[in-house]
């Protein structure tokens, strides 16, 4: 869908750079990128440097950067372009486990406002610095995520965990993922990444299970899981509302 938007807005001076945040790297991202056939740069971020550099805490999020290399909107919720004609592309098992039914029930309550976001994006592409949606440098810094020494330490633990996972030290990685989760509780990506590396079920849907298995819940190494955590905050609060 971003490719279609790129076709429309690239002639007007916009480039899109998509970044897949996944410790599994190309192995994790390839099928999605090949299906999307991007003509724009499509990058792989195994250590979630987008979190460290820009304060990305959930997906999908975006950052807007102007022609001079100045950020004009810091990391914020970025819904896909509205497209009522298209059905979700994910193929679901014929007999869907109850766990996925519950996940989809919560996911249906997640709120997005693609119309406002994409109207703002077109306004900025058209009007540049004169757009009301292009923020001042001071506002950009002030709107970026809070960061203190604890949060910085959490980012270091996450980077270490991702590298340990890449190097095949999965058990060691878990301990540092846990530290990252404790120190950066606002990050959904830190949690979802770690949960996606467990194998609670067999098969290609394992990464989407994101929680303990029904058969052996005791072997789940993490304090939280997707369904429990989203119910704790309320699915309607999962995405921060987009603020003009």
């Amino acid at each position, binding site marked *: 869908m*971003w490719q279609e938007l790129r076709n429309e807005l690239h002639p007007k*001076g*916009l*480039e*899109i*750079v*998509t*970044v*897949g*945040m*996944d410790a599994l790297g*190309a192995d994790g*991202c390839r099928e*999605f990128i*090949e299906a999307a056939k991007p003509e724009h*740069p499509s*990058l*792989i971020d195994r250590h979630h*440097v*987008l979190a460290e550099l*820009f304060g990305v805490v959930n997906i*999908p*999020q*975006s950052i*807007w*950067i102007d*022609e*001079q*290399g*100045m*950020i004009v909107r*810091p*990391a914020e919720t*970025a819904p896909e372009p509205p497209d009522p004609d298209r059905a979700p592309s994910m193929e679901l098992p014929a007999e869907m486990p109850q766990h996925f039914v519950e996940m989809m029930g919560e996911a249906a309550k997640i709120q997005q406002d693609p119309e406002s976001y994409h109207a703002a994006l077109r306004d900025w592409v058209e009007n540049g610095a004169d757009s009301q949606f292009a923020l001042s*440098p001071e506002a*950009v*810094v002030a709107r*970026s995520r*809070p*960061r*203190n020494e604890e*949060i*910085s*330490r*959490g*980012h*270091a*633990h996450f*980077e*270490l965990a991702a590298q*340990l996972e890449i*190097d095949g*030290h999965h058990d*060691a990685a878990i301990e*540092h993922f846990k*530290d990252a989760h404790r120190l950066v509780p606002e990050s959904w*990506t830190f949690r979802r*990444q770690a949960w*996606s590396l467990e194998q609670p079920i067999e098969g290609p849907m394992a990464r*989407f299970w994101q929680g303990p298995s029904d058969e052996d819940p005791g072997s789940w190494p993490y304090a939280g899981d997707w369904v429990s955590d989203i119910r704790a905050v309320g699915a309607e609060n999962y995405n921060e509302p987009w603020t003009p």
Partner: protein
Amino acid sequence: MLLNSLSVDRAEFERGTGWTLKPEGACKGDVCIPLPDPMAEQIDVEATASAMGLPLVAAPEHNLWALGPESIGSRALTSAEAPNLRLPDLEGNEFELSSLRGQKIVVYAWAPY
């Protein structure tokens, strides 16, 4: 920044942290943090991290350390100047965000899980 040693050369330290080492200390934008020996060829990571307030975490059994980002401005961004994101594409070719200077850019974060 990932490290396999607690002593790294200055170019690697600068590239990994985004801070430039000058006679007055470690600098980014208008901010400089004084360091004991900023012009050394080899950087003592523990001493430098401590002086800069950068957290250092360790997995010594795997000979691996990670240096966290600064929190000096209490925000994820210390400046609205975009950091030069450097990441590989699917084929492993490294891409630099600064190569798009002169165009508007939307950096879009997604994940396959």
